[in-house]
């Protein structure tokens, strides 16, 4: 029997502590849309997405009303487009991006991810053409997201790809300079990319996945912050327990919504991604959880330890709440999307170096960080290589989503608005890594990749 305390607790979480389902993401395989005629392929892509996801938004809205829980985003992820582009060698892959945008408009989804290439060991047909087309693709579309996997624990880091991605990120910012440099905000460079991630901008539908499936990404930094705030004098292990219990409850929401959506859409249920994803809304900040644990401001000494505790407790609480946990699962630290991080970066407490250390223990990587517009492509490549090295050696997913703010100087603010928030231009190290980046080649896989 339900008791009124439980009922009111759930309602308080939703109304006051910003608990929401961050996204339901439909993964759609496009492998059966490959065609040597790019126009035919685009038509097949459009038709397949719009038929599979025809009711996605409608079902999402219905579930929102049924359970009274907001589902903030409805999204689609697709097979990495480089695999389709491989069949059309002399064509501009941007045509695919436009087809994806048309499909996203028809389905009314917020984002569509999968303008992607997986090049962790090398480039196959289609990969290079797609990667080079990313800046154009992101500038002529609004809702299409792109990602490139340049490294993995099993294969090492493709430094040629890291070099190119530095140029692609910068170019992407330059051609969208009149639109708050929005291009690179939709582009993620991964090491150890996961195939069932429902979160943007890095979502794509891996080749090992079924034809079509539903993933759910839950959120709830506000709920965890409120729970932590209730125990100002608890010891660390007591605090870990509180976070675990809260994560369990949050994840149960995701499991419920995912199972319901899967049934209503008649599509198999993939995974729940139990990530704490902050938003710029007041009270929905991961940085504030860390500060609630006892740091004066996020970014000071102790931040990495607090984040490690948080990330682990979230996973432990979440795994029991869901039949299939996957995706990135942990705590996200996107600077521009988190009010606490924005404040800490403005104050100079949170630096790029500290963020890099934090990425070794959080679920993803250097995310939504605004850097000066006069950054060199080699420096971006080197930041990507550093981050990929952390992921490769620690057997975890890491990612880089940097936004070079063209025309802005250190300390100025770049405003995106909406979920992407705003970020101060953060200082970078100006010494050149150009010689290292120009070498090219591949960083060999670490010793512990040899597991068989």
């Amino acid at each position, binding site marked *: 029997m*339900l008791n009124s305390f439980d*009922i009111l607790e*759930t309602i308080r979480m939703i*109304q006051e502590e910003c608990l929401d389902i961050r996204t339901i993401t439909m993964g759609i395989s496009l492998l059966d849309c490959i065609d040597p005629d790019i126009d035919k392929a685009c038509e097949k892509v459009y038709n397949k997405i719009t038929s599979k996801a025809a009711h996605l938004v409608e079902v999402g809205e219905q579930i929102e009303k049924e*359970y*009274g*829980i907001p589902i903030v985003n409805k999204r689609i992820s697709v097979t990495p487009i480089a695999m389709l582009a491989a069949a059309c060698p002399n064509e501009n892959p941007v045509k695919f991006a436009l087809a994806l945008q048309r499909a996203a408009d028809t389905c009314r989804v917020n984002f569509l991810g999968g303008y992607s290439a997986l090049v962790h060991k090398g480039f196959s047909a289609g990969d290079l053409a797609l990667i080079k087309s990313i800046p154009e693709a992101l500038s002529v579309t609004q809702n299409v997201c792109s990602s490139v996997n340049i490294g993995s624990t099993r294969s090492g880091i493709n430094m040629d790809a890291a070099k190119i991605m530095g140029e692609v990120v910068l170019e992407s910012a330059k051609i969208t300079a009149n639109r708050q440099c929005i291009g690179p905000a939709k582009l993620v460079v991964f090491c150890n990319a996961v195939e069932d991630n429902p979160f943007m901008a890095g979502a794509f539908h891996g080749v090992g996945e079924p034809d079509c499936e539903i993933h759910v990404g839950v959120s709830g930094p506000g709920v965890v912050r409120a729970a932590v705030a209730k125990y100002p004098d608890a010891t660390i292990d007591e605090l870990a327990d509180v976070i675990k219990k809260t994560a369990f*409850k949050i994840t149960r*929401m995701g499991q419920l919504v995912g199972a319901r959506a899967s049934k209503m859409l008649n599509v198999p249920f993939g995974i729940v991604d139990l990530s704490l994803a902050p938003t710029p809304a007041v009270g929905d900040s991961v940085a504030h959880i860390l500060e609630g644990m006892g740091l004066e401001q996020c970014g000071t000494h102790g931040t990495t330890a607090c984040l490690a505790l948080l990330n682990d407790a979230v996973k432990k609480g979440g795994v029991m709440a869901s039949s299939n946990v996957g995706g990135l699962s942990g705590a996200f630290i996107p600077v521009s999307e988190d009010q606490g991080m924005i404040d800490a970066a403005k104050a100079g407490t949170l630096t790029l170096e500290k963020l890099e250390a934090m990425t070794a223990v959080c679920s993803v990587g250097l995310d939504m960080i605004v850097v000066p517009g006069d950054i060199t492509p080699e420096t971006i490549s080197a930041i990507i290589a550093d981050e990929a090295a952390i992921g490769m050696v620690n057997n975890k997913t890491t990612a880089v989503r940097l936004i070079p703010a063209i025309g802005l100087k250190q300390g100025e603010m770049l405003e995106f608005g909406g979920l992407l928030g705003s970020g101060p231009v953060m200082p970078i190290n100006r010494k050149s890594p150009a010689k290292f980046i120009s070498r090219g080649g591949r960083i060999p896989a670490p010793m512990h990749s040899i597991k068989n």
Partner: protein
Amino acid sequence: MRAVITVIGKDTVGILHKVSGICATHNVNVIEVTQSVLQDMFAMIMMVDISGITSDFSALSDDMAALGTAEGLAIHCMHEDIFNSMHKI
């Protein structure tokens, strides 16, 4: 199948009447009501049976939301599964 309707706001005459009136028009049966008035704040948790509902569940929750807006009350109408899944293992 059951749903939970919660109403919180300033106490006025006829809140319970209006909420249960909407239930009746949708053929939703009220099973249990817990209600209290503290100073002039009205708080109610109502458990209803929706197995005989004659409309979409979303129509019921839309009507409740409209009543809430009109009367200045916070009314939430949620399927019981959300509470069961969150609070029971």
